[in-house]
C-alpha cells in the first residue's frame, strides 16, 4: 500500500499531531517485562514544573506530595522550618524576612484544593451540558476492544483481522456490535459500514464532525488519549519501544484514537448535542495552569532535608577505611536493595564491594534452557546485539532431556488446567474436581517453601551460556568479549587490586501468584532476573585470551583471580552461587567461607528488611521472608525499591561504614582511570537515567495512586500478558500497585525527586552534562538535583539551573520552629 499527494501529507500531519498529543502519557511496559518508567518522560524537555502543570491539566493528576503527609513529616521533624525557609528563599531570593515569614504562615495554614476539572473531550462537554454519561461509556467500550485486540493467547476465540491493526479489525466488526447500536442508534450502522479505510482519515473526519478547529486538533487528541492513559501508554510502548520482532499485536495510538473518536462522534450525535459550538467553547479556554508555588516549596523542603543529611554524612570521614587486600570482592547491581547486602557483608570481614548496572555491560538476548521465548537482558535504552542460549554442559545432556520432559508434562497439565478454567461451563466443575489437589499443592508451596526451592535446584542439570561465537550465530567474538569486559571494568573503576575471588552478583525477586513479579527483578536486565548476565560476564572475564588482551589495554587481572557468578534473591535475601562446576577445585574452601559470610550478611539484611514490612515483626525473619515469597496470597512480598532517593557515583570510600537505609543506588567510579570522562558519561546517561525512571515511577505512583499507580492488588485482573485491570474492565492500570508504595493509607515510600551525588572533577562533570541533552534536561529542568565534589576534601557543590555551581549550604537547624496546625 502506498499513499501519495494530499492524502499522504494530511496523514503524515495527523501522525505527528497524535505523537505530540501523546507526550503527556508515558509508555507502559507489559507485565512480563515490567520496568519502572517516568510517567511524564515525554515531557522531560519542558522541565518538572511545566510537565506537572500539563499532567494536572490533562490527566487531572496530583503531582506533589499530599499536604497531610508533609505536615506529618514536619511534625516528626522530617521537615523543619529552616528547610521551609531555605526553600522559600531558593525560589524567591529577593524576599525579605517579613515576606518570608508571611509566605510561610500562608504555606502552613492554607489548604490545598485540586483545581476544577476542565472538560477535555467532546463527550465530556456533552456530559457536563446534558447530564449524560457518554465519556465513561465510550471509555468502557474502547477499553474492551483494546483488551480483545492485544490478547496474548488467553482468549479461546481471538479477535479476527488483528494483523491489520486495531482500527481496521474493529471497523470490520463494528456494524455488528450491539453495544455500539445501543449507544448510537440503528441509523449508525450504515455509517459504520462506510468508515474511512485509513485511521488517520477517520480521525480527521471525526474531529471535523465534532467541530474541532484544526488549531485545536492536538488538544482534543490529547484529551481523548487522557481518558484511557493505560491503554495509551501500552500503545506507546508497542509503537516506540517494543523490539521489531515483538509478537504481541501492534496497538497503535492512531488506531486507538480512530476507534475512540468514531465512538465519541456517534455518541455525541445520538445524544442530540450540538457539539460544534460546545467544542469551540472548550478550546477557547486557556489550558495553562500556574505552577503551585506552595506545593513546590514543600517538596523542595522535603528533599532538602534528606539532601542535607546525606551530604553532611558523606562529608565526614568514614570510620572504616578501604581494605588494602580484600579476601574477596562483591560486585552488585546498583539497585538500592544491594546497599544493604554490601553493608552487611563488609561488616563480616575483609570484603570490598562495588556497584555496577546489574547487566554487567552484557547486552544480550537470552534463551533459558528449553524456553521458547527470548528475553532482552539489558536496559531498555539498549538493543541487545548478541544472542546467548543456556545449554547443558557436556555429560549433562540426558539429565537435561529428562528435566525438559518433566517441564513439558507440567506445561501440558498447566495448559489443560487453563483451558478448563476458561472454558464455558467447565470452570464451574473444575474447582469441585481439582480443588483437593490444587489446594494441597498451594498449601505445600506456602508451608514448605525452602524444601520446594531445594528440590527444584537438585533436579536442574548443569548448564552454561553459549558465550563464544558459534556456528548457530550465538555468542561473542573474542574482540567483543574484550571490549565488553574492558567497558565494564573501567566504568566501575575495577582495573587493579583484584581479589582472589570476585563475585558478580545479579539479582531477582521471587514471588508467587504476582502479576507484577518482574517489577521486583532487575531493571538493568529489562525486568528480568540478573543471573544470566552475571554468568556471561564471569565466563568472559575468566577467559585467558580475554585477560591477555585486557592486559595489553592496561587492565591486568592476575591469574589467581577467579570471577564467580551469583544471584541475590531480594525477596528472601539469599545469595545463590551459579555455575559451581566452573569454579576451580582449589578455590572451594575460599568460596565456602565467602558463602558463609554472604549468608550471614543476607540474614542480617533480612532481619532489617522484614522488620519494616507490615506483619514482619517476627522471631525468625529469614524464614518469614521465605514464606512471604512463596505465599500465593501475599500482596507485599517485599518493599522493592520503595524509599529510593539518591544515586551516588564514586568510590565506595564515600559511603563505606554508613547505613544508607537501602535508599541509594551506588555506582562505583574511579575518576583516576577515566581522564576523558567516557565512563562518567556512560554512568550518567544510562544507569542514572534508569534510576531516574525508577525514582519517578515511585514518586508519581505515591503522590497520585489513582492516576499513576497500578491500583489495589486484591482487585487485579490480568489481561493476557500485558497488564492488569481493576475489576472486570476499564483502562489498563499502569504504574506500581498500591501495596508497593503505601502501608495502608499512608505512604511508605517517601516521594522525593532523585538526588545524584558525584565525586569527580567538576569541569569533567560539566563537560559531560553539557554535551548530552538528556542530562541537561534532567539536571537543569528540576527532575534531578546534582551534587558533586572534585575530591573527598572538597566542599559539596550543587549544579544550578543555569549550569553553574554553587557551594552547598545546609539549611540552618534551629529551635525556632513555628507553632502551626499539623
Amino acid at each position, binding site marked *: 500500500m502506498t499513499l*501519495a499527494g494530499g492524502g*499522504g501529507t494530511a496523514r503524515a500531519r*495527523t501522525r505527528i499531531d497524535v505523537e505530540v498529543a501523546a507526550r503527556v502519557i508515558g509508555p507502559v511496559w507489559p507485565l512480563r517485562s515490567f520496568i519502572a518508567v517516568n510517567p511524564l518522560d515525554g515531557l522531560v524537555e519542558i522541565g518538572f514544573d511545566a510537565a506537572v502543570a500539563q499532567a494536572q491539566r490533562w490527566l487531572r493528576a496530583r503531582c506533589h506530595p499530599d499536604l497531610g503527609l508533609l505536615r506529618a513529616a514536619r511534625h516528626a521533624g522530617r521537615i523543619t522550618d529552616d528547610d521551609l525557609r531555605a526553600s522559600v528563599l531558593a525560589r524567591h531570593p529577593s524576599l525579605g524576612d517579613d515576606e518570608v515569614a508571611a509566605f510561610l504562615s500562608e504555606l502552613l495554614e492554607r489548604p490545598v484544593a485540586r483545581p476544577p476539572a476542565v472538560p477535555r473531550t467532546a463527550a465530556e462537554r456533552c456530559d457536563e451540558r446534558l447530564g449524560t454519561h457518554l465519556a465513561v461509556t465510550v471509555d468502557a467500550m474502547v477499553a474492551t476492544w483494546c483488551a480483545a485486540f492485544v490478547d496474548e493467547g488467553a482468549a479461546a476465540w481471538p479477535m479476527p483481522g488483528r494483523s491489520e491493526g486495531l482500527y481496521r479489525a474493529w471497523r470490520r466488526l463494528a456494524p455488528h456490535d450491539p453495544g455500539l447500536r445501543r449507544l448510537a442508534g440503528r441509523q449508525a450502522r450504515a455509517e459504520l459500514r462506510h468508515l474511512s479505510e485509513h485511521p488517520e482519515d477517520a480521525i480527521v473526519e471525526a474531529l471535523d464532525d465534532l467541530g474541532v478547529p484544526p488549531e485545536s486538533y492536538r488538544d482534543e487528541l490529547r484529551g481523548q488519549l487522557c481518558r484511557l492513559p493505560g491503554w495509551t501508554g501500552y500503545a506507546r510502548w508497542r509503537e*516506540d519501544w517494543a523490539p521489531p520482532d515483538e509478537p504481541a499485536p501492534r496497538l497503535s495510538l492512531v488506531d486507538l484514537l480512530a476507534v475512540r473518536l468514531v465512538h465519541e462522534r456517534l455518541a455525541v450525535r445520538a445524544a442530540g448535542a450540538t457539539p460544534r459550538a460546545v467544542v469551540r467553547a472548550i478550546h477557547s479556554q486557556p489550558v495553562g495552569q500556574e505552577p503551585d508555588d506552595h506545593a513546590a516549596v514543600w517538596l523542595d523542603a522535603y528533599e532538602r532535608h534528606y539532601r542535607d543529611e546525606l551530604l553532611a554524612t558523606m562529608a565526614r570521614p568514614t570510620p572504616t577505611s578501604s581494605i588494602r587486600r580484600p579476601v574477596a570482592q562483591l560486585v552488585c547491581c546498583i539497585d538500592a536493595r544491594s546497599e544493604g547486602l554490601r553493608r552487611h557483608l563488609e561488616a563480616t570481614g575483609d570484603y570490598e564491594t562495588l556497584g555496577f548496572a546489574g547487566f554487567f555491560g552484557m547486552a544480550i538476548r537470552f534463551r533459558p534452557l528449553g524456553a521458547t521465548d527470548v528475553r532482552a537482558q539489558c536496559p531498555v535504552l*539498549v538493543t541487545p546485539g548478541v544472542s546467548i542460549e543456556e545449554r547443558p554442559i557436556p555429560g549433562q545432556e540426558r539429565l537435561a532431556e529428562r528435566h525438559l520432559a518433566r517441564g513439558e508434562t507440567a506445561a501440558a497439565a498447566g495448559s489443560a488446567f487453563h483451558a478448563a478454567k476458561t472454558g464455558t461451563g467447565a470452570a464451574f466443575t473444575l474447582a469441585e474436581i481439582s480443588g483437593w489437589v490444587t489446594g494441597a499443592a498451594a498449601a505445600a508451596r506456602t508451608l514448605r517453601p525452602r524444601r520446594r526451592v531445594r528440590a527444584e535446584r537438585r533436579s536442574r542439570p548443569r548448564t552454561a551460556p553459549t558465550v563464544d561465537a558459534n556456528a548457530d550465530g550465538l555468542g561473542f567474538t573474542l574482540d567483543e568479549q574484550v571490549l565488553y569486559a574492558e567497558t565494564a571494568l573501567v566504568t566501575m573503576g575495577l582495573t587493579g587490586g583484584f581479589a582472589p575471588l570476585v563475585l558478580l552478583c545479579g539479582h531477582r525477586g521471587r514471588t508467587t501468584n504476582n502479576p507484577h513479579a518482574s517489577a521486583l527483578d532487575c531493571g538493568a536486565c529489562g525486568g528480568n532476573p540478573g543471573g544470566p548476565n552475571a554468568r556471561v560476564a564471569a565466563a568472559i572475564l575468566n577467559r585467558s585470551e580475554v585477560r591477555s588482551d585486557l592486559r595489553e589495554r592496561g587492565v591486568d587481572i592476575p591469574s589467581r583471580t577467579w570471577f564467580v557468578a551469583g544471584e541475590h534473591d531480594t525477596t528472601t535475601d539469599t545469595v545463590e552461587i551459579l555455575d559451581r562446576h566452573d569454579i576451580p577445585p582449589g578455590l572451594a574452601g575460599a568460596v565456602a567461607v565467602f558463602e558463609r559470610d554472604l549468608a550471614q550478611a543476607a540474614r542480617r539484611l533480612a532481619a532489617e528488611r522484614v522488620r519494616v514490612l507490615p506483619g514482619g515483626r517476627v522471631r525468625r525473619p529469614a524464614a518469614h521472608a521465605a514464606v512471604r515469597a512463596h505465599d500465593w496470597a501475599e500482596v507485599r512480598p517485599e518493599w522493592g525499591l520503595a524509599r529510593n532517593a539518591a544515586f551516588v557515583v564514586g568510590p565506595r570510600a564515600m559511603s563505606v561504614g554508613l547505613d544508607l537505609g537501602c535508599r541509594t543506588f551506588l555506582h562505583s567510579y574511579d575518576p583516576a582511570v577515566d581522564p576523558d570522562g567516557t565512563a562518567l558519561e556512560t554512568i550518567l*546517561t*544510562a544507569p542514572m537515567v534508569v534510576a531516574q525512571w525508577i525514582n519517578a515511577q515511585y514518586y508519581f505512583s505515591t503522590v497520585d495512586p489513582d492516576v499513576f499507580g497500578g491500583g489495589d492488588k486484591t482487585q487485579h485482573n490480568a489481561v493476557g500478558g500485558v497488564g492488569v485491570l481493576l475489576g472486570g474492565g476499564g483502562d489498563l492500570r499502569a504504574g506500581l500497585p498500591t501495596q508497593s508504595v503505601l502501608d495502608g493509607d499512608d505512604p511508605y515510600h517517601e516521594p522525593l525527586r532523585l538526588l545524584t551525588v558525584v565525586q569527580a572533577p567538576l569541569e569533567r562533570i560539566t563537560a559531560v552534562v553539557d*554535551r548530552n541533552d538528556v542530562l541537561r534536561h534532567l539536571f537543569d529542568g528540576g527532575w534531578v538535583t546534582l551534587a558533586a565534589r572534585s575530591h573527598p576534601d572538597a566542599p559539596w557543590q550543587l549544579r544550578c539551573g543555569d549550569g553553574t555551581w554553587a557551594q552547598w549550604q545546609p539549611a540552618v537547624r534551629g529551635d525556632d520552629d513555628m507553632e502551626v496546625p499539623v
Partner: protein
Amino acid sequence: MTRQSLTPMTKVEVVVTGDDLPALREVFAAAGATGYTSVANVSGVGHHGFHQGRLAFNERDALTLVITVVPDDRAEAVLAGVQLLLADRPGVMFVSDTSVSRPEYFR
C-alpha cells in the same frame, strides 16, 4: 549505465535522537515511503555545539541519521511530516534531488 537511464527522485536525510525515530518512521510510512536507511550514533557540531554520537548504553539519546528516497510526488508529504516533527524537537533535515537505478523499489 548512464545518468539518463536513471530515474529522478527526492532524497530526504534527517538527523534525530533515537527517541524520535519511531515518530519519524510513522511519518515515512504515512507519507508513502517504502523504506529507509539509518546510520546510528552519528556525531557532529550544530548551533547548540558538539553533539555526542555514541553512548555506550543508551541508544535513545544518541543521534541517528535516517535516509529515505521517495518519488517526487510523495516528497511533499514526507517534508510536511518531518517539518512538523522538528518544530519542537532537536534535529535537522536535508533534501536533495537524486537518481535511482531501480525505481520500482521506491514506489
